């Protein structure tokens, strides 16, 4: 389908990503008045690494590391019947109790909001957190549902044709956020 997409603009470099995550970690602690009852859940695949990094930063700041889970939303997608091929679901791994917790859902990029809708439905099948907040590294706009992130690393106006790619060291390679164009 795609040719080789071209890198159009560098949005965040390694230091920029780190600064954004540091700020988000502080904001999470401020809004939740500390790390008590706090749990982080990263959405597969991009959100998982970011959730782990936020947890490490929260430990540096607060001395307490919140538990981190991962969530795969494939089974809750609304486009399964129209996609060309099925995505291979990744693991959902939430080993702690989420009942009554302050949960921060973490993803790398928020776009249409449909992933978050699916994640919220999925979370409800695991328990009833007291509150769910949303943290994303990049908000690229073009929402199709009334969903808004509580913590945003970078607001990035894009055209729908462009692609935003978050590359992290955990996946190997250089760490950066870029806009790609076909």
């Amino acid at each position: 389908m795609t040719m080789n997409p071209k890198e159009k603009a560098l949005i965040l470099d390694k230091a920029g990503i780190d600064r954004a995550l540091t700020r988000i970690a502080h904001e999470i602690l401020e809004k939740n008045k500390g790390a008590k009852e706090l749990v982080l859940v990263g959405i597969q695949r991009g959100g998982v690494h970011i959730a782990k990094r936020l947890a490490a930063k929260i430990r540096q700041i607060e001395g307490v590391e919140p538990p981190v889970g991962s969530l795969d939303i494939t089974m809750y997608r609304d486009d399964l019947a129209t996609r060309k091929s099925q995505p291979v679901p990744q693991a959902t791994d939430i080993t702690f109790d989420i009942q009554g917790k302050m949960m921060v859902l973490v993803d790398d990029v928020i776009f249409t909001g449909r992933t978050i809708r699916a994640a919220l439905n999925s979370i409800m099948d695991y328990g009833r957190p007291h509150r769910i907040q949303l943290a994303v590294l990049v908000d690229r706009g073009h929402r199709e549902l009334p969903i808004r992130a509580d913590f945003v690393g970078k607001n990035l106006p894009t055209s729908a044709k462009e692609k935003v790619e978050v590359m992290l060291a955990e996946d190997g390679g250089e760490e950066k956020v870029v806009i790609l164009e076909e």
Partner: protein
Amino acid sequence: MSLSSKDLLGMKGMTAEEINLILDTAATFKDVSERDIKKVPTLRGKTVINLFYEASTRTRTSFELAGKRLSADVINITTSTSSVVKGETLLDTARNIEAMKCNIIIIRHPCSGAPEFLSTRLKSAVINAGDGFHEHPTQALLDMFTMREKLGRLDGLTVAIVGDIAHSRVARSNIYGLLTMGAKVRVCGPATMIPCGIENMGVEVNFNMDRVVEGADVIMMLRLQVERQVAGLFPGVREYARFYGLNQARLACAAKNVLVMHPGPMNRGVEIASDVADGTPVILDQVTNGVAIRMAVMFLLTGGTKAEA
């Protein structure tokens, strides 16, 4: 990556990539059955028909649970209480069911080839839940899933399949699947129950069970299908048990950590001794994994537009 066919008819011709796709997908669906809320909305609004022309507890329940845990509407048709007893043909029954708008038809039939016959005439996805002596692909997939889960791989494993190979669709599907995945397969049973020329499939034949279990990573016992024994292929059940039953003495010939599997239902004291059956938890793990495999298959067959097919 998606499956190349709209149907799942057999393991023959399925590529290693497709098998891996199903096994990988099943691994995540297994978690759904472990949760408090054992339901995901994946197949909401889809209709699944279980059309069973033969007796079954495990497979039918497994398909039904798999469909329900994916939020599909599942209807079970047992032919003994259906229009089939009034003489309706298989194709007419299936066409009538499809006219009520369903997405997946799961069929078990005593005639080999019945699922394939339907698949070419229906728009719905057809899943073979066992046809005659031909294939039982979801059983082979759940067996391979269980082996991979317990032993970490399929490539290079030595799997001994013991029993009535000739009448066993479980054996046939497993042989196709395991060979595709790079495992070695040995078959063992009374000479009357080993088809001529089965070596040509790439399996090793041996009539001495003590030799066959030696060095095997997996021993797969087949059910002695009493309902299919018409020609007197063996002198008696006692003798069969003595030569081809898995008991403690024979198990001692095998490696200590050998995986003992059985597709069920078991004839205790015939192909498997009671203490052996109760000593291996894997046989029930197979059943647990069966639900995950069937969820994965239904998920992969219903989603997507199959544009490439």
